[in-house]
């Protein structure tokens, strides 16, 4: 029987803390640029303001356009229930939930893409096609990472896969552990449309991918899209952080504090990467993702040769 309090706490952390991560990334980037930057809680302000506004719908759009923000928000929120976050166990776990996890994220993306095409704008269609092309590649790399974890942990449940291969056992796992961490970090950047792949700060530029798809959304719809993006970053980052947190205590509250600190650390790391790197030219992006695919493949081969 699952205890109720840890589950509620987990859910609350996920819902309430995730916009803060993006604030930390923004502050880090502002620090490197020598600017003041937006406040840490900017995304909370944005979301609450957008919720109070009304939405504008184009006459060409259908119900898909209205459903998409909610569907993607709900999908990533359900995905967050499948992963262990630090010492907080996943409330939902069964054999093969890793596939559900990957496809819940894919469902969220699928609806964003559909909504973008639903507007009938060629500009958004272009973004949708880019998003679809790049996510195909990154999904393959993501599954290779998971396959490595399956081989290392001999389990196909996400919770066991992640917790069995944690920091203290890396001595046993060797180089494939480092390889999948690097590869997964690249996937994290791709999936969340962060800098070497896509620049979340530029609007109305012909080279962008994710931002262009959501241009037509307004008001509460846009709030849900921003929120879903923040939760997605939190979920995918949570997997990495759970991997790297060296210890877990028995105290649930302490675990939560450690988790939040670790997530902030990850946000700092992403901010540093974004400040240090320039966005890749669009035709170099597939090579970048395939690079992460090859890293994951190498990790898998090593894991298989040891198994």
């Amino acid at each position, binding site marked *: 029987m699952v205890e109720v309090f840890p589950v509620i706490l987990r859910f609350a952390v996920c819902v309430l803390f995730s916009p803060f991560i993006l604030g930390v990334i923004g502050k880090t980037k502002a620090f490197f640029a020598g600017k003041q930057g937006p406040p840490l809680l900017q995304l909370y302000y944005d979301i609450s303001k957008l919720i109070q506004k009304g939405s504008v719908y184009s006459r060409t759009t259908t119900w898909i356009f209205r459903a998409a923000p909610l569907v993607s928000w709900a999908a990533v929120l359900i995905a967050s229930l499948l992963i262990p976050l630090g010492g907080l166990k996943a409330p939902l776990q069964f054999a093969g939930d890793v596939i559900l996890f990957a496809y819940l994220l894919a469902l969220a993306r699928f609806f964003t893409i559909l909504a973008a095409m639903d507007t009938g704008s060629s500009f958004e269609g272009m973004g949708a096609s880019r998003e679809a092309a790049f996510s195909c590649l990154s999904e393959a790399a993501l599954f290779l990472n998971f396959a490595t974890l399956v081989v290392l942990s001999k389990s196909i449940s996400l919770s066991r896969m992640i917790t069995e291969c944690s920091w203290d056992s890396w001595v046993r796992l060797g180089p494939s552990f480092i390889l999948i961490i690097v590869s997964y970090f690249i996937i994290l950047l791709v999936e969340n449309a962060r800098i070497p792949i896509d620049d979340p700060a530029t609007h109305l530029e012909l080279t962008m991918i994710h931002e262009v798809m959501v241009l037509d959304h307004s008001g509460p719809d846009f709030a849900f899209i921003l929120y879903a993006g923040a939760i997605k970053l939190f979920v995918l980052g949570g997997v990495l952080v759970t991997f790297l947190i060296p210890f877990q205590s028995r105290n649930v509250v302490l675990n939560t504090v450690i988790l939040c600190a670790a997530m902030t650390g990850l946000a700092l790391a992403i901010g540093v990467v974004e400040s240090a790197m320039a966005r890749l030219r669009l035709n170099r992006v597939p090579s970048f993702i*395939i690079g992460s695919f090859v890293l994951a493949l190498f990790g898998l081969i090593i894991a298989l*040769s040891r198994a």
Partner: protein
Amino acid sequence: MMINNGLDTALAAIVILAICLLGSSRLGLIIKLFALQSLVVSAIPFLLGGDLGIHKIIIAAGTFLLKVVFIPSMLFWAVRHVSIRRDTPSLLGVSLSLLLAGFLVGLSFFLAAQFPLVKITFSDLLIPSAFSTLFIGFLLLISRNKAITQVVGYLVMENGIVLFGFLLLETTPLVVELGIFLDIFVGVFIMGIFINHIQNEFDHTDISQLTALKG
């Protein structure tokens, strides 16, 4: 077999650096990556474990001096001299050559499993990494247009052979390794002169154009 994590990580790093080389097109970056790879290779003898004989120290120092200091500085000189900064994209394209590299890594693990050479005492990754580095170096050598990148491809291949050599470190006489060092030294020296002459003669170092008639 005991697990030697430092050695495993270093071997993985060598292969990863070879893959990075395959993915980059700036000549300066390519030379730096090669120097870094050679640095890791020169550290391998110390990670092998066992007693630290004069043999190991000479191999490590030789690799370091030749491939981390001398050859990169010579290649940098050549790049400055012929004033080129970028290689043209490889014949295969970056994505395809990266995927091929992944395939070759898999192939090397398969080959290594069939390799009844010697009883390996330190790491089961040594032979696969040697094979992978060799193959990826070869891929770099055949898929690029610029002479300097081809030289680097040759040197990466050579790094793979050196990894093989570490396998037999205890049994090969020092003279053999010194002979190999001399070979590379002369080889790179000659290639450096070649690149220079190609540049002087044709005003570029694009090998693919050498088959066309001049004029």
